[in-house]
């Protein structure tokens, strides 16, 4: 990519309206469901539409969140850095909607029914574990939390997101397994695998640098 184009892209991402637009876009699917719901446009089985839709958007937003750092490092789009938290929180938001859709629409908001269901169905339990894993990440997403934890501990905690991504993907594959719907699963599997590889390569590169340059010893 030509450096000039890069500068332009970075400037675009830094535009005053860019971040508010991103936030608006994150609300897009939710607003779409609410609007469709009010018009009777959620299809013959609205509960199923919401359950599937919220799950898919969680996975999509997770892929986008994880793509930020590789794009920043390899494509030089440093301006994207401040989008990562927004996308991460949106991921958590849709994961929460997904869990609520399950607990409310499917389980009738009965905690005993949820516990019984999770204990019987490993695929649901895996999804639930991924959702629970996102909670500490969302809870420590504000600047104060980063300061209080210290950058290194914060970073170590937030690496959990790769394990969560693995669990989320497993949850999706498991749900689809018996129907042999590889076509639905592989785009997400491939994206997440590439992002994990990018992460490992990046780590190797930074680790091979002299320690003094990457981190200060406390």
């Amino acid at each position, binding site marked *: 990519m030509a450096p000039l184009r890069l500068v332009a892209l970075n400037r675009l991402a830094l535009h005053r309206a860019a971040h508010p637009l991103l936030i608006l876009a994150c609300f897009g699917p939710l607003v779409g469901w609410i609007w469709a719901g009010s018009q009777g446009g959620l299809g013959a089985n609205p*509960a199923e539409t919401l359950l599937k839709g919220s799950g898919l958007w969680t996975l999509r937003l997770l892929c986008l969140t994880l793509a930020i750092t590789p794009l920043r490092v390899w494509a030089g789009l440093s301006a994207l850095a401040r989008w990562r938290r927004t996308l991460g929180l949106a991921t958590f938001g849709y994961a929460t909607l997904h869990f609520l859709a399950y607990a409310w629409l499917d389980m009738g908001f009965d905690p005993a029914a949820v516990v019984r269901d999770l204990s019987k*169905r490993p695929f649901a339990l895996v999804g639930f574990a991924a959702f629970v894993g996102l909670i500490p990440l969302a809870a420590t997403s504000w600047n104060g939390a980063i300061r209080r934890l210290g950058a290194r501990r914060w970073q170590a905690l937030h690496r959990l997101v790769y394990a969560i991504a693995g669990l989320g993907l497993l949850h999706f594959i498991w749900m689809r397994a*018996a129907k042999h719907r590889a076509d639905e699963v592989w785009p997400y599997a491939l994206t997440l695998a590439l992002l994990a590889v990018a992460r490992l390569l990046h780590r190797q590169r930074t680790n091979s640098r002299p320690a003094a340059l990457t981190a200060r010893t406390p």
Partner: protein
Amino acid sequence: MPLIRRSAADTGFDHPWPSEITPAAVYARRRDWLRQAGAAGAALVLPALPALAGGQAASSARPGKLAALPAQRSGVAGAVVMERPTAYADVTGYNNFYEFGTDKSDPARYGARLKPRPWTVQVDGEVLKPATFDLDTLLKLAPMEERTYRMRCVEGWSMVIPWLGWSLSALLRRVEPTGNAKYVEFTSLADPQQMPGVASRVLDWPYTEGLRLDEAMHPLTLLAFGLYGEVLPNQNGAPLRLVLPWKYGFKGAKSLVRIRLVARPPQTSWMRSAPGEYGFFANVNPTVDHPRWSQATERRIGEDGLFARKRPTLMFNGYEAQVGQLYAGLDLQKNF
């Protein structure tokens, strides 16, 4: 504190005074006056929108989309359930027919590619008089009956559908099964020219299903040629399909091209695909869960609100009185 306490086992059907029970037909129509009042009110307030006011009340009338298929009301026990039929748009727009794609809107989207005429069905195997029947012969083989059945999908949703057809037993008797005939195998059309879903390896095509001979001979086992007073829409399995109201919907093989009587239990497409999840019988049973979800409850399409509690699924989908004796002594937990 709820005014009426319910135990976990209370399914809402126990009643100590039978004389006080509202007749089912009256109960099923309990909201009709509301609907009519609403329609009348809407007609007064919204004279510009008569379609809106009349939309719900005419749910079981002929939709006028396809050729009419005259039929008489069925006299078979359990053949006409007193529940409101699911809207024609939902019956024909939301269903599984993987030959057209795995999304539930795919059958309606791609169904037009199917040519339901001319059509023949080969009936052979352990029979004395094997034959290939063409569609017109089949349409006249027995008197056409209207039957309103519950349809419970293995995925946890349900509908009520007014089918047209006749008991499969009429056809089976015609070909005279031999003493060796113990099971019946059903085969659906699998033509990639007409069915885009056949190109994907979702299932092992052609789609096959199977029944024990006594199940196939049961009067409720319907060979359906139509729904809502008209011939079957392509997406619902035109020109003829199987309907088994006490089994999960996938047992009802669509667009049948072959019916074969056999001595040994036939392999079905779903048993080959996921033997741990789908068994040979696939009887609706609230006490046997699918490995990935509970079968204890269901959501009635178009009727149960988004935040309504799901309704309890009935044993044999409410047809226990009619078909229960077929499975006397059979371990239904093992033979799911």
